């Protein structure tokens, strides 16, 4: 679903992502782990077209994010780590705005909005302005709007930060459901226990370079992910 080939991104002289190659396939819940400043957010933003990159190629279902960005962007939903939304819009207006951009029909959007806003217990507050929401509510709204257009691929940056336990559990269930339907999820996280339990594949990035990648069971072996991660970061 996502093919990243030799991705390189520089900020001036600093190489934030160095020749990174990764494949995320249908059915994967792919965890992306690294220390602070390792290049996780830069990689994710490059995949989603939020920032340009210097070298390499990124294909979403075979479509280049650079050459045909509109077609590629229709296939995924992206949620950043601290989703800043439009404070003057109400929750429902924001969701409708996203659905209009993704050209979702009335019936389909109605069903999806009802389903996900009920799941995240946000239905009753959708009429209030986003400026009145707490951080967790904004996070939930971003997730609802991302799911409202039925994406095949979810790309998330630290999705569990700010979510209460029930919402975290709901999001995990949604991830499983998406993958069972042939979709995929790619997310970065600092919570290694979640990655260990949830992801079937893991990639570990250090100083812009991939240091370990593969099936979770193979990456971890007999140790814990925390142990492996700390060993790799020490090297």
């Amino acid at each position, binding site marked *: 679903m996502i093919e990243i080939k030799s991705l390189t991104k520089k900020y001036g002289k600093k190489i934030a992502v160095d020749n990174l190659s990764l494949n995320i396939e249908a059915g994967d819940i792919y965890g992306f782990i690294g220390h602070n400043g390792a290049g996780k957010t830069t990689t994710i933003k490059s995949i989603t077209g939020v920032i340009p990159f210097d070298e390499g190629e990124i294909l979403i279902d075979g479509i280049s994010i650079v050459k045909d960005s*509109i077609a590629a962007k229709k296939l995924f939903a992206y949620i950043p780590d601290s989703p*800043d939304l439009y404070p003057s819009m109400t929750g429902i207006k924001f969701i*409708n*705005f996203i659905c*209009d951009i993704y050209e979702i029909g009335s019936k389909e959007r109605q069903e999806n909005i009802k389903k996900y806003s009920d799941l995240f217990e946000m239905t*009753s507050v959708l009429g209030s302005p986003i400026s009145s929401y707490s951080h967790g509510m904004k996070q939930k709204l971003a997730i609802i709007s991302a799911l409202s257009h039925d994406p095949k691929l979810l790309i998330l940056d630290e999705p569990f930060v700010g979510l209460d336990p029930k919402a975290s559990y709901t999001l995990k269930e949604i991830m499983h459901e998406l993958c069972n339907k042939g979709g995929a999820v790619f997310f970065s996280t600092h919570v290694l226990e979640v990655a260990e339990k949830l992801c079937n594949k893991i990639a570990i990035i250090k100083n812009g370079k991939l240091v370990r990648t593969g099936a979770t069971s193979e990456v971890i072996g007999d140790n814990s992910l925390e142990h492996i991660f700390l060993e790799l970061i020490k090297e």
Partner: protein
Amino acid sequence: MIDMKNKAIILVKNAIRTALTNAKFTGENTKKKYLFIGLYIFLVIYMGGFSFAMSFLMFDTVREQASAEALLPFIPVIMFFVTSVFIFATSIFSASGVLFNAKDLEMQLAMPISHFSILSCKFMGLYFMNLIFSLMILIPNCIIYFVYAPFNAVALIGYIVAIFIAPFLPTLLGSILSAIMTIALRKFRMKNILIILASIAFFVVYMQFFMNIQNSMQYITQNTEALFNSFSSIYFPSLFFYKSITGSLVHILLYIATSLIPVIIVIRIMAIYLSKFIAAANQSFVKSNYKLTEQKTSTKIKAATKKELTQYFSSALYVLNTAIMLILLTVGSIYSIISKSGFINILTQIIEENDISEMFLMVLISAITITACMSSTTAHSISIEGSRLWIYKSAPIDEKNIFNAKINVSMIIGLPLIFINVVIFTFVFDFSVLNMLFMIFIPSMALYVAAITGLIVNLAMPKLNWTNEAMVIKQSKSALVSMLCYISIALLIIIPGFLLFKIIDQTIILSGASLLLVVLFIILRKVLFTYGINKFNTLTIDS
């Protein structure tokens, strides 16, 4: 260990720096630093010069009257009253951001500093901001006063002291009203619209004063004593000010006491309730009564335009810094029709007195064109996205739709106002259909060109990592450069017209202007959809 006195000094310095947005003066870019210092000096000289002129006019008129010596001190009192009203009005808007919503307030509340110290220091920041205005208006007045009035050392000391004391009470009163409004309006969703309407009303009164400035000056100088009595009864410090500048030492001390004591008492009281106030002011009201209904769909461009309009109207600062001139022109036109007075009558008088009826159409088109160009909203439209740019950038919406949505806001605001003005002018001055069409086309096209230009400039000079929207709307390079571009677009159309109108038929001139605008439109649109798109794709939050 830093003792309390040093803590206070640090806090006051910080408050002044924040209130004056002095960060740019401390930056490494010396060119920028000197540019901004230059701009501020220019502003000070401009305002000071204006005060000199007004003061000179008033003193010179009053001294010709029989009881001049007795009346002269009333002029400074009138200027003092006007300054106090202005400080009071501006403090209502600025106090909230400086005192109660300052980003560092929560951090300071968690530090080992008394609430009284924190609040006093922030108040001093606000006071210094208002002091600059007081100095700009009252120092020139003071100089002119002592040119006309007999010199008295105590009076001079009194005047200087009074200039520095003057901002305290109006700042305090403005802060109190601001605090009350913050609590009272926190649940009110239309408060931005209220602020916009109140500001427009303020500007209309201000413009009305300037349009009738001769009559206003005459009224002031013929009714000086009566005005002084009114002001003294409305605002008692006016009397103390008068007594201070006429040499009463007792009243100088009384003035200091009656200004500072209330400030200290009120700040003490506010400090006691500060935490509760902040909690109440920041309380968010999420209504939990929404029921999902049928959702309507929109096209991408319509959805993006609606989002841009919502964002635009959510910021009083954004609206007042863009559409205000065109709104004032429209209000002035409507007022002129209804009251049969106002600027249209002034214009008619000027035409008749100077026999310039043949260029009058050009004058009107120029006026609408300049105000239309200045009302363009696009100079900040990229920067205002700020940390929310990821939404557009990760969504399947092409850049042309995004840009068109931003330009649409300018057109949706501007076109109806242009049309109203054109209809009024056509009705009053009986223009032909062709001339009416020119009056619609030229300003509308100029607005479109200005909107595209503002967007290109903002793409070239974005500022996405802002914390306060004033940084983007009032203080950014893009805002300044765009303003110069808007004026240039308007002058490019207007100046050749005025230079050529005696040699070339007016219809040909206006056709030429229209054609020039079409050419500009084609070129700039091409630039926007090539250079602009490339720039947009390279934008990041660090821009």
